[in-house]
């Protein structure tokens, strides 16, 4: 291995040996890391202990950052299409030529069809903020993040219920109900570690509902193999029992919430007996759990998860879970859920600028044109979807019908919708009809195969980036510092966007040219902050954790800051919420008006199997990041494909044995799978890890290895939030 320490052993003595603190980006958890660099070569990675939650922990993927960096299969130079679109014939090009081509093509599209004819998409994060700014200055409203294929139902439900994001205090909870939030496979080290400690503690209790015996389920005190997509029925009956027995935090609900009566009316019929036929969990269990959970409140969390795409009722499911937390009165309690304490709030409270304020280096002017999916537009089906994020599932049809207006180009940065978005067959057809596709990525991808220009991106180890503010109990700041200069002829998105902005004539929109200028602008010249972020990669002031409804916590805070008045601390919670009613909304009147039956949790749209004999579900593994890391040598060696989990009784019914090949199909598509027999799944359910079944001939190691669940997913979205739905009905067909 080129980058390993051993390969460099003799040079250690004379060469430079340093640690660079940075931020990981092999997945979107973005953990704080430190990189050991010997002679300009990264040789080792570990957690950055300046983030005390990390210690030196890092996951297999994070460690493989070095393996990705030195992977011979990485894109090394700009490529331009030679043959037909998707034909896989390329020629190498210089950056000047590639960027000039992109700029002139974008200019041409803008002249002929308007700037809105260009779509822009990216993984959420800094690259998305940058790309959104680029799109807005170019004049297109059509920016897409990965939200609608992942957390949008949660973001929506939080927004509609609380008017802001909420966070979970796993560390201090006594009881957690987990609805398939797979923290032991979709890793976020601080969260996963807290959850592992929780699960290993015999005095705490973890309930897991998941159709599959996941690692999480393996750590549970009780595992319920709930029928896929039926979480809502479970929560509705739980709420029913609490309301029936008047077991909820009456004072809290009365004072801070709106819509209890509507909730009660909606849940009259959702008894424990009623939910049995949906979830497969018996009524007695519900009664017992309802009692246990309520007794554990408020140090109890019903965990709404990270990705919420289980059924069309996703908005309802997530709202029901949030409301269950509210009824337990765990809001702003230790071991419950809490809201971000922002730098502005804390600085105002303690009357000193302890937490630096940042200004965005990415100006994003309002475009004033409706989006292709109508997101955020009054009267549209996606009026409640944030304008910035959009609905990915709406893209294919919009391109194919050229409605509501001409759509001719797409700029994608590390976004691979042909793997991660439903119905890639249709998307491929739609992409084939575009005039311009630009893809910026580390590797060749299914989507890049369809591009006119492929721009090779530098990996996160080779990039300097801006300051990132993380919200939570105490704000923290991280900054990506590069461990080495880019290998090959790769560039960062910042460099690409800045060059294109120059060429397209809106250079003036940006007050920075280099990353140094960008950082200085963002930090408002706060060089102390920048210096410590360059040195430590992670900065957090130590102040007492503040749970606004936890007396001891508030008192401790006031003791630490003697000049802070108790009343001011308490007022932070008493303030008007950013919801239409100003309160926590158990019932959302404006949602009900637009989507009848969606204003308050009720039993709607829960069916995902749709008359097929089996439900196909999918999820993350701890080895790969969605559709991104399959080619990374270290990770590929651990997990080169994704066999289909199948219960032995199901296999027997179809005459299938371990490692047999068969097909799963529905009206959307048909996919070849290899059978993996396991007791760890419901007999009516099938499971695939995400990100396989690729079509990338330029990456022969992963081309057509394993199976893609996306190929069987419908473009229909969940009402209100526009979420993709990743559980679907299928049948098994023998090969």
């Amino acid at each position, binding site marked *: *291995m080129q980058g390993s320490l051993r390969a460099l052993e003799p040079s250690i003595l004379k060469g430079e040996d340093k640690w660079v603190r940075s931020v990981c980006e092999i997945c979107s958890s973005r953990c704080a890391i430190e990189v050991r660099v010997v002679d300009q070569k990264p*040789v080792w990675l*570990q957690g950055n202990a300046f983030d005390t939650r990390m210690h030196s*922990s*890092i*996951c297999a993927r994070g460690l493989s950052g070095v393996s990705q960096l030195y992977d011979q299969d990485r894109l090394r130079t700009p490529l331009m299409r030679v043959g037909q679109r998707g034909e896989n014939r390329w020629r190498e090009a210089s950056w000047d030529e590639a960027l000039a081509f992109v700029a002139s093509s974008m200019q041409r599209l803008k002249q002929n069809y308007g700037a809105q004819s260009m779509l822009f998409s990216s993984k959420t994060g800094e690259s998305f903020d940058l790309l959104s700014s680029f799109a807005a200055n170019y004049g297109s409203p059509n920016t897409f993040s990965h939200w609608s294929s992942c957390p949008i139902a949660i973001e929506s439900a939080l927004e509609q219920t609380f008017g802001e994001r909420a966070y979970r205090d796993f560390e201090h909870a006594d009881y957690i109900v987990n609805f398939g939030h797979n923290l032991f496979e979709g890793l976020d080290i601080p969260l996963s570690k807290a959850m*592992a400690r929780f699960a290993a503690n015999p005095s705490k209790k973890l309930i897991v509902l998941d159709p599959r015996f996941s690692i999480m389920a*393996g750590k549970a*005190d009780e595992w319920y193999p709930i029928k896929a997509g039926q979480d809502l029925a479970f929560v509705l009956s739980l709420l029913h029992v609490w309301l029936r027995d008047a077991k909820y935090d009456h004072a809290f609900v009365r004072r801070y919430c709106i819509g209890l009566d509507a909730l009660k009316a909606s849940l009259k019929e959702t008894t424990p007996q009623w939910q049995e036929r949906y979830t497969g969990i018996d009524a007695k269990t519900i009664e017992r759990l309802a009692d246990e959970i309520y007794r554990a409140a408020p140090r109890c969390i019903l965990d709404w998860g990270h990705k919420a795409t289980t059924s069309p009722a996703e908005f309802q499911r997530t709202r029901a879970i949030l409301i269950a937390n509210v009824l337990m009165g765990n809001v702003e309690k230790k071991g419950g859920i809490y809201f971000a304490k922002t730098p502005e709030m804390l600085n105002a409270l303690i009357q000193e600028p302890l937490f630096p304020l940042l200004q965005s280096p990415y100006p994003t002017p309002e475009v004033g044109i409706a989006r292709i999916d109508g997101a955020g537009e009054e009267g549209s089906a996606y009026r409640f979807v944030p304008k910035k994020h959009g609905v990915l599932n709406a893209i294919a049809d919009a391109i194919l019908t050229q409605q509501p207006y001409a759509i001719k180009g797409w700029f994608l940065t590390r976004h691979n919708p042909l793997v991660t978005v439903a119905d890639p067959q249709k998307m491929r057809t739609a992409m084939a009809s575009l005039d311009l596709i630009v893809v910026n990525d580390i590797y060749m991808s299914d989507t890049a195969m369809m591009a006119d220009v492929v721009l090779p991106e530098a990996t996160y180890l080779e990039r300097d980036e801006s300051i990132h503010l993380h919200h939570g109990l105490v704000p923290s700041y991280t900054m990506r510092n590069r461990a080495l200069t880019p290998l090959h002829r790769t560039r960062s998105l910042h460099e690409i966007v800045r060059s294109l902005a120059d060429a397209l004539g809106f250079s003036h929109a940006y007050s920075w040219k280099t990353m140094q200028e960008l950082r200085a602008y963002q930090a408002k010249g706060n060089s102390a902050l920048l210096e410590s972020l360059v040195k430590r990669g992670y900065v957090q002031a130590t102040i007492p954790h503040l749970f606004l409804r936890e007396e001891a916590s508030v008192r401790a805070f006031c003791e630490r800051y003697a000049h802070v008045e108790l009343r001011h601390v308490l007022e932070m919670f008493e303030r008007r919420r950013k919801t239409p009613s100003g309160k926590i909304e158990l019932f959302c009147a404006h949602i009900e008006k637009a989507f009848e039956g969606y204003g308050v949790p009720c039993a709607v749209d829960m069916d995902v199997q749709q008359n097929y004999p089996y439900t196909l579900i999918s999820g993350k593994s701890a080895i790969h990041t969605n559709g991104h890391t399959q080619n990374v040598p270290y990770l590929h060696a651990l997990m080169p494909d994704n066999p289909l989990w199948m219960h032995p009784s199901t296999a027997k019914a179809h005459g299938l044995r371990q490692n047999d090949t068969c097909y799963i199909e529905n009206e959307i598509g048909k996919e070849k799978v290899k059978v993996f027999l396991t007791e760890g799944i419901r007999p009516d359910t099938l499971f695939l890890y995400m990100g396989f079944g690729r079509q990338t001939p330029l990456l022969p190691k992963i081309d057509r290895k394993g199976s893609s669940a996306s190929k069987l997913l419908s473009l229909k979205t969940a009402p209100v939030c526009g979420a993709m739905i990743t559980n679907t009905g299928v049948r098994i067909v023998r090969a």
Partner: protein
Amino acid sequence: MAKAYRLIFDENLCIGCQACNVACRLENDVPEGVYRLQVHVTTQGVFPHLGMHFERRSCVMCDEPPCVSVCPTGASFQSKDGLVHIHESQCITCKYCILACPYHARFINPLKNVVEKCTFCFDSRLSKALDPACVSVCTTEALRFGDVSQENSAVAMLSRKETLLFPKAHLGTKPKVCFIPARKGVKV
């Protein structure tokens, strides 16, 4: 004074994420296709009464190592701290030690054609007072390493608190790697 190293693997904390596996490869430049360390995860029981078992597959650093006693050339040896190592130059690759190891921890390095196994990262880390790579990166801090003869070390304290199981203890190999068995799930 000689050290009494101990590595404790808490099955309750382990999530089978293979960070240890990859860290070992990166730190020790383990060639493709072979492993000094893997964590095998198995599901036991019959649906829906299941349990999950996490097994660390690696050298357990026996106090009474069969691999050392069978080695005809002394290439396999035990240091004064009781760690089992291999002198690469003296290994004739007769493979007797591979067969003698009840933990199947040894394999042939396909590039060097000598027998290889976990060293607790002795040269690159342990001798510099650093934890082995696997311990240092463990995502959930399921691995604890230290000198059990030091009363206040994390491993000594954990050893007093928990019931430790030593793999294949009946063989009398006295491993330095031990585990805290899972408290949850069906046992088979």
